[in-house]
């Protein structure tokens, strides 16, 4: 599929794509690190929101600022900022989530010059009436801050257009999840991962066009039946930036049918109401969507959501992908584990750094887990 090839090219060389895009369109590039960044507003402002994933090798510049007990994601992103890999960025957005990202924001502000820098101080609790009011104010302030940084007003009409685009993208990606859940063979894990990741990098209009084509073709495609006996798994955790992960699991006899990841379904989940004021609609979605462990909404909400995902997708097990030193996720793990045990849902934990454990050992762990399912 030529559309897929195009997305894969973007995902394997994202910075080349962005540099070229910036040169051709003259658009501003705004970096962000977390799925709570209100990128609908960035896109409405005519800038390209780009998710930063960091590097996973040779982190040394970042080590002069961050301790080695910060997660590899934060360290890897800072490394690329310090070594000027990210010098194409015009500004950067830091939503208030975990402590490490707050410190990254501070270090960034003090050390990376020539860009604008906006902290979006989100509430931690999302299920109180005051949080609702507060979040609306924060997003209104962000709209003004961003407008000032880009030297323009961000109008309601622009916001409404962006809301529409994001709704379409998210609905289509939801469709892709459903298609793959019903027929995991329809698209390989590596290709699926490329489609998901491209959504956080590419020009959103261009992405929407390509995605529409891909879904159309997949709906027509007859799935190959060669992996019908593969064990169905749900991935849960923070980020999965390893395109190999899906392939490794498939080689071990499994297949990912759904996920609860920040770089996965949590990012796409939830539609915005197009009939109300756009900023209100954006606010409402961030209040409603499934939270990450750095936020609070109902004590057992994440666990209930995970169990619901497992049941809906008819999965046979869960793989937790946790970044080493990620305190919020580590803090949630014991209670998620207990809830899964109570439901008799098998799971395994992969505690990883940006670099994966050696291929042989990873294979052994996945194969064993899948063989005992």
């Amino acid at each position: 599929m030529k559309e897929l090839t195009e997305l894969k090219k973007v995902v394997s060389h994202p910075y080349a794509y962005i540099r070229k895009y910036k040169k051709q369109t003259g658009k501003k590039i705004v970096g962000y690190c977390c799925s709570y960044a209100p990128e609908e507003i960035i896109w409405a402002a005519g800038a390209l929101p780009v998710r930063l994933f960091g590097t996973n090798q040779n982190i040394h510049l970042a080590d002069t600022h961050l301790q080695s007990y910060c997660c590899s994601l934060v360290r890897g992103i800072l490394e690329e900022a310090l070594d000027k890999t990210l010098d194409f960025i015009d500004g950067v957005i830091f939503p208030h989530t975990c402590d490490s990202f707050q410190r990254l924001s501070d270090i960034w502000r003090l050390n990376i010059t020539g860009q604008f820098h906006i902290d979006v101080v989100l509430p931690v609790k999302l299920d109180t009436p005051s949080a609702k009011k507060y979040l609306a104010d924060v997003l209104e302030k962000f709209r003004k801050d961003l407008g000032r940084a880009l030297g323009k007003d961000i109008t309601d009409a622009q916001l409404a257009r962006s809301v529409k685009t994001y709704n379409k993208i998210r609905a289509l990606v939801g469709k892709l999840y459903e298609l793959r859940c019903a027929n995991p063979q329809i698209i390989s894990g590596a290709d699926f991962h490329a489609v998901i990741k491209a959504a956080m990098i590419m020009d959103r209009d261009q992405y929407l066009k390509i995605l529409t084509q891909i879904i159309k073709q997949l709906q027509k495609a007859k799935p190959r039946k060669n992996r019908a006996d593969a064990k169905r798994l749900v991935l849960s955790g923070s980020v999965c930036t390893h395109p190999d992960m899906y392939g490794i699991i498939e080689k071990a006899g499994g297949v990912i049918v759904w996920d609860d990841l920040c770089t996965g379904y949590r990012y796409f989940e939830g539609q915005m109401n197009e009939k109300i004021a756009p900023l209100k609609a954006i606010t409402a979605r961030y209040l409603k969507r499934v939270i990450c462990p750095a936020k609070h909404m109902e004590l057992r909400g994440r666990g209930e959501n995970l169990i619901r995902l497992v049941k809906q997708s008819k999965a046979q097990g869960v793989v937790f992908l946790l970044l080493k030193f990620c305190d919020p996720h580590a803090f949630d793990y014991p209670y998620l584990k207990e809830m899964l045990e109570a439901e008799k849902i098998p799971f395994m934990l992969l505690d990883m750094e940006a670099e994966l454990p050696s291929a042989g050992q990873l294979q052994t762990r996945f194969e064993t887990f899948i063989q005992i399912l």
Partner: protein
Amino acid sequence: MITAGIDIGSITAKAAIVDDGKILGTKVIFTGYNAEAAGKNVYEEVLKENALDKASVKKIVSTGYGRNSVKFADKSFTEIMCHAAGAYHLDKKVRSIIDIGGQDSKAIILDGDGKVKNFVMNDKCAAGTGRFLEVMARALEVDLDEFGEISLKSKKPSKISSLCTVFAESEVISLISKGEKRQDIIAGIHESIAARVASMAARLGLTEPLMITGGVARNIGVVSALEKKLGMKIEVSPYAQVNGALGAAFLAATL
């Protein structure tokens, strides 16, 4: 039915031949750099020693890190599955296994039917593995096979606090220069491995009877240090080093 199991580990390659549950023979050789050749060689040698020909072996299962390079195997299983099958066959009552191999250590929990219920693996570094012992044996100029016996003579094991193999080696070297007794240093090394493996196994929650498998089980010093740390009696498999290969051979009979 005669079946075979080939276990290609990081340091040694093992082969086992069984006939309907009866162990006919086993063999251990060094893996070297060519896992594929090691698999072929260890298989040919075990056949030769037991006066068998290839045609008499009906099924072959491979396991270990080199399992996919054993091209003549009918199927491969991970070493966790094979160690479970091997230990269960030797003693049906076994519920937990600690396997300490050349480059990693594992703890495995079995259910009443010998199926793997859960497992953990140390896959980050060499601490708590056979490789750690090899490095220490070199620093102490002692044959690794004597490690266990020597350590039992110790009354006051040295403290090795570093978890990193490289740092632990320099710690051992400074203990040597301080004039600490060799037996105390070796006992300290064993305690350090035991602490490492025990804390990993504790996350899983071991239940007795517990069996130890893998090459390091041959070291009585590590076994007794682990028993102390875990507060549990440990059954040492008489076939500890070839347990994975045996398990593979038993699993081959079920194909």
